[in-house]
């Protein structure tokens, strides 16, 4: 008697929980864009898992309607990888902050990218540690004043786009909370992509980041999707563009279609989900293995 829902609307991906974000926070737009992308793809919430990090951003896990996993700080990538490998029929989306993903979790991000597991990773990059009250984050601009660096940050920022390209990401896009529709398209593309996809989102923190504001971005961002001459299939050009434009681009930056996914390369990995396997097996199979010890 299960009803088959043919078309879902963004609202179908909303939980009852009222978002805890500050009014104006960029993360609202990310949630909205994700819901739009999900609706566009008509994702089944029951077969979708959102793996959220710790931070203001990570709260998204409580607002997006799907199976939702809110992990420990910085560990979205391995948890998402474990879920996807366990059940390849699921759509697995990870989402978290710049601190979560490029600070404590940077190592996992790079290793996930090089493995090319078919997961989508959305980073809500506000260039600050929001939830812990405004400390320097790995993407904080040099010289920005923060609660932990009141005289200005002195660590040169991590450049996620360049890092991702070098790590071997096979889908790379950057969005902006000021344009949720565009962002939704980028997220949709990421979910559709077979392999590891990163969508970095400039998602302003209106409370703690008084520099990288909506206006600041609006004045600076260039949308590559508007540039017909831009070829997202060219890795070297993508890297050069990102460097030239000082990371201030939006749109689809790079997509590779010829890199096999981890799932394709794993020896013995089967088309049906591991989670669906029957585990109790015929003892005779085990006896054969036992004989190897004789």
């Amino acid at each position, binding site marked *: 008697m*299960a*009803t088959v829902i043919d078309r879902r609307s963004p609202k179908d991906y909303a939980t*009852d*929980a009222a978002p805890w974000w500050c009014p104006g926070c960029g993360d609202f737009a990310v949630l909205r864009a994700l819901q739009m992308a999900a609706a566009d793809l008509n994702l*089944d*919430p*029951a*077969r*979708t*898992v959102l*793996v959220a990090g710790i931070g203001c951003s990570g709260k998204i*896990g*409580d607002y997006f*309607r*799907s*199976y*939702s*996993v*809110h*992990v*420990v700080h910085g*560990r979205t*990538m*391995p*948890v*998402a*990888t*474990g*879920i996807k*490998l*366990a*059940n390849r*029929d*699921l759509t697995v989306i990870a989402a978290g902050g710049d601190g979560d993903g490029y600070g404590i979790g940077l*190592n*996992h991000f790079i*290793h996930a990218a090089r493995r090319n597991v078919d997961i989508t990773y959305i980073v809500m990059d506000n260039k600050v540690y929001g939830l812990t009250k405004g400390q320097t984050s790995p993407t904080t601009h040099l010289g920005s004043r923060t609660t932990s660096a009141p005289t200005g940050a002195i660590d040169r920022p991590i450049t996620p786009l360049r890092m991702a390209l070098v790590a071997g990401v096979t889908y790379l896009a950057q969005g902006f909370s000021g344009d949720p529709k565009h962002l939704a398209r980028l997220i949709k593309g990421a979910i559709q992509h077979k392999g590891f996809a990163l969508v970095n989102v400039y998602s302003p923190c209106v409370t703690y980041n008084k520099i990288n504001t909506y206006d600041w971005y609006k004045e600076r961002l260039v949308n590559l999707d508007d540039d017909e001459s831009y070829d997202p299939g060219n890795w070297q050009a993508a890297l050069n563009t990102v460097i030239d434009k000082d990371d201030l681009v939006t749109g689809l930056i790079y997509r590779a279609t010829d890199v096999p996914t981890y799932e394709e390369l*794993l*020896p*013995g*990995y*089967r088309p*049906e*989900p*591991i*989670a669906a*396997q029957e*585990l*109790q*097996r015929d*003892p005779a199979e*085990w*006896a054969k*293995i*036992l004989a190897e*010890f*004789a």
Partner: protein
Amino acid sequence: MRSELTWMVGGQQGEGIESTGYVLSAGLNRLGYHIYGYRTFSSRIKGGHTNFRIRIATRRVLANSDHVDVLIAFDRDSVRRNAAQLTPGAVVVIDDEEAHPQLPEAGDGVRVLGVPLTGIARDVGGVIMKNMVGAGASAALLGLPVDAFDDLIAERFGSKGEKVVEANRRAFRAGYERLAGQAACSDLRLEAGDGRRRYTMTGDDAAGFGALVGGCRLIAAYPITPASDIMHWLVPKLPQFGGVVVQTEDEIAAITLAVGAGYAGVRAMTATSGPGFSLMMEALGYAGMIEAPVVIVDVQRAGPSTGMPTKHEQSDLFEMLYGSHGDLPRIVLAPATAEECFYGAAEAFNLAERYQTPVILAMDLAVGLAIQTVDDLDFSRVKIDRGLVAAPEELGPEDADFKRYRFTDSGISPRSLPGMPGGLHLATGLEHDETGHITEDRRNRVRMTDKRLRKFQSVELNDAIPPVTFDGPEAPDLLLLGWGSTYGPLAEARERLERQGASVAHGHIRLLEPLPAGVLASRIAQARRVVVVENNARGQLARLLRQEIGTADKDRLHSVLKYDGTPFLPSEIMRECEAML
């Protein structure tokens, strides 16, 4: 004719001489002997002394012996380092051109045979086969039939082609023939084995096998001695059963990846040793909080910190029991033998899913790396029990919250797995209500904490791995208590003391958390004195007992500790007991 003796091979690390021991173990097993093989090695790849000792007997043995009866020495250093263990009457075969070299370092009464092991190997096909020459020579000394090794060599080298097989057989036979005629050493010959089919395996192998049979289909791990062998064993096996091995970037990724897989419905594990285990503490608590099943094997080595990576110890007990911040219960299971590593690993997955919790399989280097004879494995004793998974009718309508963390009497709530319609929920490491939603409500907090703790009030184990076993009288003069690989030395010491007429019992604990406190309390109360025997410096089990068991007071509880990196010898335990009886 001997019903028991200890053989050893020694030489430089990395020269493949350990394979002398592997070949001999396999042959002895097929001939129906019981063996217990223990390697001594260092955290380096080539060079430095290594040795491999095999205790051979016509009955089950699970401990090293005090002495060495036969030493195959590929260098004089091996003689020097092991001389103290050579008893009068022992035979040393030294790789030497001279037939009877002077080896003052061997000690009085030791018979030295110079045999050009390397030379013979060179003659029959190549120096790398000196290990086979050594194995052949050993077979001759022990009076084993040479033919018994033919198949073995074929199996071992078959993949490398017939030529290699033949060369190795030649080398084995050449070594064999060289010492076959040694009437002077005929006292070393072994009584015939019983010819029964048995198996030799290490605890690491057995844990890997047990995991596989127990339904594990994913291991995420980072290499570390002495746990890597578990992953290595699973690497070719898991893909055959549609499973996956992921070598991660570090141990934090390893455990969190496994937790993700466990949450999604796949039995998943990680295996590590102390340093990696310490890195997993935050994620351990996370698994406990979202009530995800995960199995973590800690094959303990000598700590703290990097410690002595290739040396035995049982000093992670405290961290296994108490690591991770907050009030986090868990299950800690400690197998004592290779068999128990098999059954314990398999059962760990049942426990993890039944109690929706991290389960720590507490192994130690001695149980993990020692080669042991296993009589048989009864696969029918491994019954997959996936615990409470919500049936379709228990799941809600599509748009309602599923009560994943429903308050129940047992503390266990039926879980939904991603993919199940109507089972949507949030799994968060933050405190949450029955539906998983984040809350800081005070009443909910207390109820949810109580629910998590309540699950562990009645942990029950499969009978293949009992929570605690006792041997000997119920009210003994001396009750020996231990855990993990001290089982073998303790059992042997107890038997020998009993034969001497002493009233000694031996209790061995497999379930360390939650501790079977009731039965332990009554046994402890009935004993005149209690001796807790373990391989660590702080007496960690003894402290646990004092904490949990009223009868375990300081006066009657005595600790016997060894923390020099080597396992107990039965004789060491006997000495301590004799002083107390």
